[in-house]
């Protein structure tokens, strides 16, 4: 396959994809569910995420050639049900992309431009994602390989300096009574980890040159959850779980307070703008995955063959429709803060968990039972 990519590049894509939803969901969401034990809810998610990685590994073992999860779903369920499932997943990816456009815009507004309108940012990022979706997946994956070290480097720097603000009484003591809240809080981390992986492997083009897929997936899961654990500990340790649940963007509030070497402060605008790269990767991947699903439903070849950007043949007009769909949904969804809160805390994570933990495993089981994969 001409435009293929490696596993290491794909996992970088998954890491960058992981950052935006993790920052949005995990600190406040886990603090609300788990209270003081919120910082422990991330490691609690690890065994469940490893099990999920094993499921993805088993599913991908059934690949033929450079197939992705989309092709495997089509083979597992057959033409009719497979297309229905892909259509549903395509709509889900568009919804998710639109929601991330909206929440990313709200993030920029609440942290840097309090008087601006969200529509400008939704439109700008949507157009950027659309133009990325009109190109090869390989370009997106390689972009993530470049962006990943920059974003993770800044995150690690910020978290290191934030360690001095952590207070012991914000994290301890913990009792067994916090276990239930901890497990509920771990669903947020689990959901974000699952969607990062299945969305990345949805596309075709991955070349596995004898690489140990399961080991690499597990290492990825451990590393992202470790980073998320550090982030959550810093935030809960600095603000306490009571204040964290009331802050709209606790990570950026933490960055706002940081002073580097008693000289440099108020760098939150730079950090927020760096998250735009993560948003761009996420939106582009959502559009790539959605158009891939819809083009398979229509029976078109979804593989990129070097077509020009405005070419509409081979079903490429679907990409434009997907872009339009994501932008329109981002513009019109969740206009009120309470509605956005509902979408952010309950609706989107709920649908994600249903897709990750029920739909995809169900498709795999059906495919294995029917001996189609």
């Amino acid at each position, binding site marked *: 396959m001409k435009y293929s990519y490696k596993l290491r590049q794909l996992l970088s894509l998954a890491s960058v994809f992981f950052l935006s939803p993790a920052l949005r969901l995990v600190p406040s969401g886990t603090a609300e569910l788990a209270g003081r034990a919120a910082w422990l809810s991330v490691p609690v998610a690890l065994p469940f995420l490893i099990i999920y990685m094993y499921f993805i590994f088993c599913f991908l073992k059934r690949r033929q050639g450079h197939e992705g999860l989309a092709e495997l779903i089509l083979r597992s369920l057959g033409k009719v049900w497979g297309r229905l499932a892909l259509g549903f997943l395509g709509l889900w990816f568009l919804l998710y992309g639109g929601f991330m456009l909206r929440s990313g815009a709200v993030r920029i507004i609440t942290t840097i431009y309090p008087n601006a309108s969200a529509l400008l940012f939704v439109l700008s990022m949507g157009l950027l994602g659309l133009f990325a979706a009109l190109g090869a997946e390989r370009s997106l994956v390689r972009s993530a390989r470049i962006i990943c070290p920059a974003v993770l480097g800044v995150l690690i720097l910020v978290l290191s300096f934030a360690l001095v603000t952590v207070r012991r009484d914000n994290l301890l003591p913990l009792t067994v009574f916090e276990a239930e809240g901890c497990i509920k809080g771990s669903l947020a981390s689990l959901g974000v980890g699952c969607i990062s992986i299945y969305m990345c492997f949805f596309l075709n083009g991955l070349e596995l040159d004898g690489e140990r897929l399961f080991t690499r997936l597990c290492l990825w899961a451990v590393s992202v959850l470790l980073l998320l654990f550090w982030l959550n500990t810093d935030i809960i340790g600095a603000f306490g779980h009571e204040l964290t649940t009331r*802050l709209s963007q606790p990570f950026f509030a933490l960055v706002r307070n940081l002073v580097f070497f008693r000289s440099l402060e108020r760098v939150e605008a730079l950090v927020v703008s760096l998250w735009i790269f993560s948003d761009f990767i996420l939106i582009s991947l959502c559009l790539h995955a959605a158009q891939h699903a819809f083009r398979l439903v229509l029976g078109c070849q979804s593989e990129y063959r070097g077509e020009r950007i405005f070419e509409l043949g081979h079903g490429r007009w679907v990409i434009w429709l997907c872009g339009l769909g994501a932008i329109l949904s981002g513009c019109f969804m969740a206009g009120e803060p309470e509605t956005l809160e509902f979408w952010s805390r309950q609706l989107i994570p709920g649908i994600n968990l249903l897709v990750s933990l029920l739909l995809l495993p169900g498709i795999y089981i059906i495919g294995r039972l029917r001996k189609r994969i």
Partner: protein
Amino acid sequence: MRKGRKTIPIVLCFSLMLSGCGSIYSNYLEVEQLLVIETMGFDYLPGGVQLTLASGLSGSEGDVKLSGVGATVSAALDQARNYSFEDELFCSQTNSILIGEPAAKRNMEPYLSYICQSPILRTDVPVFIIRGGSAFESIMESGDSRHGVSEILKGVTEYLETRGGSHIFKASQISRDSLRHGSALCCALEFSQSAEPPAGEAPSAGEEAAQSARTLAVAGLGIIKDSRLVEYIDQEAAIGVAFLINKVGVSRVELKDAMEREIVLEISSGSSRILPRWDEAGELLGLDISLEAEATVTEMNDNADLSRESYAQQLTGALEEHLAQLVGDVLKQSARLEADFLALGSQVEQHSPLLFRHLNKSFSELLPALEFRIAVRARLSHTNDMKESLT
């Protein structure tokens, strides 16, 4: 070549968007055009809030002070900006927040919420309550041409950070403690006459000139319960607070020896350990508080002779008794107000988490019934003064 012909117009179209928001000439501001606000004050007005702002000193021009009124803090800030001479107010460098006493007694929650939610303010900005006054008056009338109110507050902050008896309480900490314990502490300042005349006035310029200089001085701590200021803790009693929250800095204590002579001791370090006492049924009976303090003698008068062991022991005993008194008074105040502003509940929870979880009332409600046993162990490390007085 064909690709280039199509690409160039597209790039030119997009380059129009690279010029930034609007035009670089219409909304671009030089740094000198920004008024950097370093102090912000909140006062209550019926139906709204009065916001008072002050910049730092700027060369020979002095500091700029302005005020605005509005239904909300944002509206007051807009009014202050609209009716000022300034191009733009830059509030992201705010280093101190002052809250007038009437506003603090009414409700501090709107101001703390604004600080924690605002993208322009840091959540760890120090908060001070103006004891017996308003933030407007204290900002507008403090300082002189050489010392602006922001510089005075910087001095106060440094004083609190290096010396004892008080502790800087930040907006996020006050918010968190209020949410967790229902109560919190806040530094109190008083707006009073300065010890020096205004800049440019000679010390002998006359009483009126000397009295015209006003400043902000440390005046103990304010107790906040349910987001309202309820009482104060005086500067000396704040030493007891410092011990109980384990933030003992350098603080001076004046004692009398057995012969009723004045002795000044300086506490250089100290700590406390709080252990809960439970009965067999898991009910909290009280707290055992043990303090350790190390002090030095800085000044003594008349016929004091520290070289005699019995005298040193007597002085140590007096210090222990004094510290026990200070700590006991603060604990009684906490019990009387049913306000856990010392975060004693947290310390009990750290020690016995399971028993704490099964308490049938909140810790604040249990405070009046608790028995406090205080044990102090002090040590005089050395004397800065002479071992024996001249007379």
